Every structure is written in C-alpha cells, then in structure tokens.
C-alpha cells in the first residue's frame, strides 16, 4: 500500500497506478458532470435529475481520454 502511494505520488505510470488513476478520474468526472448538469438544466429538470444525467454522460468523454493518455505515459514516462 505504501509502495502504491509512493508510485502514485512520483507520477510513474504502470498498469496498477494507471488503473488507480482511471478510477479516480472517473469518480471526479461524475462529480464534474453532476455540476455541469445542474448548471445546464437544473432549473428545467430539477437538480437531482440533472445531476444524475450529467454524471452519467461525463465518464463517456473522460474514460477514453484517460486510457489514451495513460497508455502514452506508459510508453514515454518522462516528458
């Protein structure tokens, strides 16, 4: 566990830390999507529903980008 935290902090990307980043990113994107949904349609749809729909769509954009980005980092770890 300590090793994992060390690797995460140092910014090295390997399959394990990549997975952790992906999970973190997905969670954050749902949060962002809920905010975006509320900003966009909170008035019309009601805040709960808008947040749900927003949170549903957000990962669709984030996950592919994250996978691509982490793969790239995996092949060239030091920019």
């Amino acid at each position, binding site marked *: 566990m300590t090793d994992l935290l060390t690797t995460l902090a140092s*910014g090295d990307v390997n399959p394990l830390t990549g997975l952790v980043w992906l999970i973190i990113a997905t969670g*954050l994107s749902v949060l962002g999507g809920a905010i*975006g949904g509320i900003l*966009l*349609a909170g008035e019309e749809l009601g805040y709960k529903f808008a947040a749900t729909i927003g949170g549903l769509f*957000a990962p669709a954009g984030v996950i*592919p*980008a994250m996978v*691509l980005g982490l793969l790239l980092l995996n092949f060239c770890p030091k920019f």
Partner: protein
Amino acid sequence: MLEIGWFSAKLFFKGKLIREPQYFWRQTAIGAAISFLLLIVPLFLHLPLWLTVVLSSVTTGTIMPFLLQDFRMK
C-alpha cells in the same frame, strides 16, 4: 437518483437510449479530445500528474453535459 442512472445505463447498453448515435459519438470524441489535451499538455509544463488528472476529469465532466445537451432520448 441511482435508479434513474442504472435504468439509463441499461437502456444505453441495449442501444435504446440514444436516437442519433453518430451525433453522440462525435460530441463524445470532442469531449475526449479536450480531456486528453488537458491531461497531456500540463505535463509538458512539468505539473504533477495527479494535478493534471484532477484538472482534466473535473473540467471534462463539467463540459460533457453542455456538449450533449441537444441529444434526443427515446
């Protein structure tokens, strides 16, 4: 709230939620491209990885509903 999400997700994977798949995929690709750039570009400026991950996820998450606001549900 969770029920709505679960129900929509089920419909989505059955391919019955979205009326115009092409539009949906195009907008998703735009969102993914923005997210990808936000993730990679700050790394060239030597920002720590965790910061770029947080930035890119939250920003993209927030703009996705705006990108997909015109889509039609069945």
